[in-house]
């Protein structure tokens, strides 16, 4: 009989018993037929039970059988205490599920290696220097010429690959009216080969397709796009599309798992670097540089070599900067180059969210520990009521290990059930969180496979958690001394001490979670209530594009046409919307002096823009239709403070300095308004006329609706634009409010999730506290009964019951406070205008913990005070 059949026999023990019984019965009957005395024949077998046990044990694996018995018994016990078990399982499930979901996100964004060869040898290059605001800054974008130089320098040691920062490009497969958007990435021709990627269809482009600027308009589409857009039609190979002024031909489809190197974005179309118009420009940094190290090549010497190449390039380039502050040039030349591991890819999403996700993951882990402490307390309390059962088991010969097994198996049930529910929760929650990272029109797309990595994590977590909350109660239960336990006189204090310690731990973690959540919520609150300086009410933004660049007069025609649409209040034009993250800057020369810090920011707007955005004009006038750039400028208050020391600059002329000096006459002053981000300090801004001498291809038409719901105008406006002039097309329609909300996506996500986990933590800690208090009242009911009988007042009883625990709560809160102030340093960058040392930030969690403790203590105190001395003493 194989081991497997023996294991299988564990689970059909009944049949096994029956068969053995039947065989023995037949033997006895035959013996009697042969004339043996029936009684004697039976006696010859000895104890039937022993016989059966002996025969049975050879037929199955004894320890598995005992495990099975414990599992059945454990499940029965859980079912007996339905409510407490359910509470334990659910709280643990929530915690395990959240942890698993957090792991899924962190793994997908930061840990999981790209599905390419040599992912472990992949690095990315970044500059470390000083930003325009004087703070340390890091950026990982490079120009194409410097990439080429570095690539040549690294030959033989490493392969350098350039990948553009992905953009949503407009492609046309048929007519111009059917333009569609796709995530486009320019990549080095050598990328597919270097990554060892095979095509799913057609061919992948190579180094040879990437030799001459503009020579090879070929494209490879991703498998995801092939499936989504073309239903995996093999005829897609050879199709062409228009992009800008080029016609590209699709030559192949990438392999299924590969979605590009920009984690968080699924690329649709790859085209060679040489097809980008900026391929020869040294001043346009639009590439990430990935380094695939050859095996055995040390990192540091290569990094120094590349840094030297970059420095030489920048030094050469700086010679051309005639009108730039010398300090800035020095800073530029002092930049350090770093090589960072990039086996999980390299993207802005990683930069923006890694810290947030890790902070959330930590909060979730704390919630898990709180839940574990709860279950441990529950098990300890149950162990107390089981002391007699355990003592009995020891008395009839159960080994110590058998008792540990018994209790651990019960814990394993709780762990396993919780893990099953938690898995379902994680399945649902992780994609939900990714969906919340959705700045308008650019939602994050993160591959979230639930494979062995996630399952392994969940399994390890469950196992770890089971031991965490199950081992101590199990060891305690097994160390029972039969003599004293059966007499009912075991020392209850040691057990209570353990429970109290766990309460302190719970409160400490709970305080920490509340504290951090409070900081996140306050940050979000500050940020979202930040005055923006304009009114986003009822403002629609129509990102509009034309097949060929159009003069400003054509744009004005479209604006006039839209003004006539019923329900439209005002219409204006700007190059891009405020708070869209876009900006353009330049160094200024004031009074003809050499250019100096800081940078000034620009936005070209049509007459009526300021009025439409409700940015108040403080002095001077708005633009007129005949104002042309270069020429006039309207500046904001910060501009006046920065460059004119607050003196009225109307009528004065300043110069933009790059690429050549261009004058602008200040005709008006407006109040400060947020320019590109809510997070940076107010910038000096100069608005310049929308009209200029060259034609314009892209701009934003801004419409303020008269009615409360601007989106009801959306479809009519979309249709009206091409009707006004057929070359015009709305490629995207958003509300200004969406752009403001997008600025706070991360903060809102953090605040929401942190608040949720803080509530869970508080709830769990409350349940734990109340459970322990209840238990101690039960344990001490004899003592309380006697005290009440001899006339102790209710207040004294309440004090007696809560004294130890309140000391623990205070100790826990103090520990939590200490932990909080230490750990908050690591997430400071996630806060906005919030100081962790702010007294209010500390008072809030303290108050919440205090109130929760009060609420949790109340039922136990009521119960203690209402103990009937006579009843209690009689029942013992």
């Amino acid at each position, binding site marked *: *009989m194989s081991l497997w059949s023996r294991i299988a026999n564990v689970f059909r023990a009944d049949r096994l018993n029956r068969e053995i019984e039947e*065989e023995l019965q037949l033997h006895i*009957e035959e*013996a009697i037929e042969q004339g043996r005395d029936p009684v004697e024949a039976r006696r*010859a077998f000895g104890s039937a039970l022993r*016989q059966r046990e002996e025969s049975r044990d*050879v037929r199955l694996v004894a320890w598995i059988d005992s495990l099975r018995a414990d599992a059945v018994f454990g499940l029965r016990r859980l079912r007996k205490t339905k409510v407490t078990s359910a509470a334990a399982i659910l709280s643990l499930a929530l915690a395990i599920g959240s942890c698993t979901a957090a792991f899924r996100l962190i793994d997908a964004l930061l840990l999981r290696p790209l599905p390419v060869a040599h992912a472990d040898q992949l690095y990315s290059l970044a500059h470390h220097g000083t930003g325009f605001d004087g703070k340390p800054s890091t950026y990982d974008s490079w120009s194409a010429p410097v990439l080429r130089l570095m690539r040549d320098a690294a030959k033989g040691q490493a392969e350098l690959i350039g990948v553009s920062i992905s953009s949503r490009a407009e492609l046309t497969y048929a007519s111009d009216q059917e333009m569609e958007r796709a995530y486009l990435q320019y990549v080095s021709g050598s990328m597919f080969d270097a990554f060892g990627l095979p095509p799913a269809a057609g061919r992948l482009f190579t180094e040879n397709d990437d030799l001459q600027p503009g020579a090879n308009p070929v494209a490879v589409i991703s498998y995801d796009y092939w499936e989504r857009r073309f239903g995996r039609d093999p005829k897609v190979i050879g199709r062409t599309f228009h992009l800008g002024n080029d016609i590209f031909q699709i030559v192949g489809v990438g392999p299924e798992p590969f979605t590009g190197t920009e984690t968080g974005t699924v690329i649709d179309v790859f085209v060679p670097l040489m097809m980008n118009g900026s391929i020869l420009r040294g001043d346009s940094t639009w590439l990430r540089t990935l380094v695939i190290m050859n095996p055995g090549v040390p990192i540091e010497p290569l990094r120094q070599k590349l840094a030297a190449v970059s420095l030489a390039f920048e030094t050469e380039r700086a010679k051309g900067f005639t009108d730039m502050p010398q300090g800035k040039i020095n800073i530029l030349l002092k930049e350090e180059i770093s090589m960072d591991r990039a086996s999980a890819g390299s993207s802005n999403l990683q930069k923006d969210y890694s810290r947030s996700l890790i902070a959330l993951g930590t909060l979730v882990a704390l919630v898990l520990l709180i839940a574990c402490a709860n279950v441990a307390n529950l098990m300890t309390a149950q162990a107390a009521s089981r002391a007699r059962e355990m003592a009995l088991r020891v008395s009839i010969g159960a080994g110590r290990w058998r008792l540990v097994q018994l209790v651990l198996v019960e814990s394993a049930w709780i762990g396993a059930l919780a893990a099953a529910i938690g898995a379902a929760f994680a399945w649902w929650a992780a994609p939900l969180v990714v969906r919340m990272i959705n700045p308008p029109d650019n939602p994050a797309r993160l591959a979230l496979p639930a494979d062995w990595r996630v399952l392994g994590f969940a399994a390890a977590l469950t196992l770890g958690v089971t031991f965490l909350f199950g081992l101590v109660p199990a060891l305690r239960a097994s160390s029972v001394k039969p003599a004293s336990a059966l007499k009912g006189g075991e020392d209850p204090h040691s057990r209570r001490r353990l429970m109290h310690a766990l309460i302190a731990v719970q409160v400490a973690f709970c305080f920490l979670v509340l504290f951090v959540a409070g900081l996140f919520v306050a940050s979000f609150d500050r940020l979202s209530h930040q005055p923006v300086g304009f009114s986003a009410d009822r403002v629609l933004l129509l990102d509009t594009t034309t097949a060929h660049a159009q003069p400003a007069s054509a744009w004005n025609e479209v604006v006039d046409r839209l003004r006539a649409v019923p329900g439209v209040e005002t219409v204006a034009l700007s190059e891009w919307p405020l708070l869209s993250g876009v900006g353009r800057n330049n160094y200024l020369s004031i009074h003809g002096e050499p250019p100096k810090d800081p940078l000034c920011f620009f936005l070209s707007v049509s007459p009526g823009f300021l009025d439409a955005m409700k940015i108040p004009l403080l002095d001077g006038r708005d633009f007129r239709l005949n104002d042309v750039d270069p020429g006039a400028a309207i500046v904001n208050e910060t501009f006046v403070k920065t460059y004119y020391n607050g003196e009225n600059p109307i009528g004065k002329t300043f110069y933009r300095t790059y690429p050549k000096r261009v004058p602008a006459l200040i005709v008006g002053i407006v109040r400060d308004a947020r320019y590109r981000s809510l997070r940076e300090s107010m910038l000096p801004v100069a608005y310049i006329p929308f009209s200029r001498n060259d034609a314009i291809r892209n701009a934003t038409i801004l419409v303020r609706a008269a009615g409360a719901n601007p989106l009801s105008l959306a479809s009519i406006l979309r249709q009206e634009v091409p009707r006004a002039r057929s070359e015009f097309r709305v490629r995207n329609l958003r509300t200004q409010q969406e752009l403001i909300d997008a600025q706070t996506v991360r903060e809102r996500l953090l605040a929401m999730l942190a608040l949720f986990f803080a509530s869970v933590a508080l709830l769990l800690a409350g349940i734990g506290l109340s459970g322990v208090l209840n238990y101690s009242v039960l344990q001490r009911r004899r003592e309380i009964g006697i005290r009440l009988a001899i006339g102790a007042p209710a207040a004294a009883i309440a004090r007696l019951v809560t004294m130890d625990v309140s000391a623990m709560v205070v100790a826990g809160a103090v520990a939590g406070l200490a932990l909080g102030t230490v750990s908050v340093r690591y997430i400071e960058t996630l806060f906005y205008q919030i100081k962790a040392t702010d007294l209010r930030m500390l008072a809030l969690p303290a108050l919440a913990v205090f109130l929760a403790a009060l609420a949790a203590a109340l039922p136990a105190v009521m119960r203690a005070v209402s103990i009937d001395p006579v009843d209690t003493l009689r029942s013992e």
Partner: protein
Amino acid sequence: MSKSDSLQGSLDLLVLKILSRRPRSHGYAIMSAIKDSSADVLSAEEGSLYPALHRMEEAGWVRSEWIRKDSGRRARIYELTAAGKKQLAQEQERWQTVTSAVNRVLRTV
């Protein structure tokens, strides 16, 4: 459970030998055969026979099968496996060695 003294060993030997001579026997038949062929000198205890059979099945020396007897009752019959035949040969040889050694001792005294 895991006694393996000489008596136990000889019980295994007897059972294997009987089964090699009369394959597909059930427990009672094996017991009777031991008794008959030893002219009532040896007898297998019922209390040891069945655990021994089950143990040998577990060890892979015998395999069992349920059949319906002429009387209509179900019976479990046993037969030797290839491993059982090898085991029988070994046991037999061991037994010969031990008994001849014992005999030599008895003669020299």
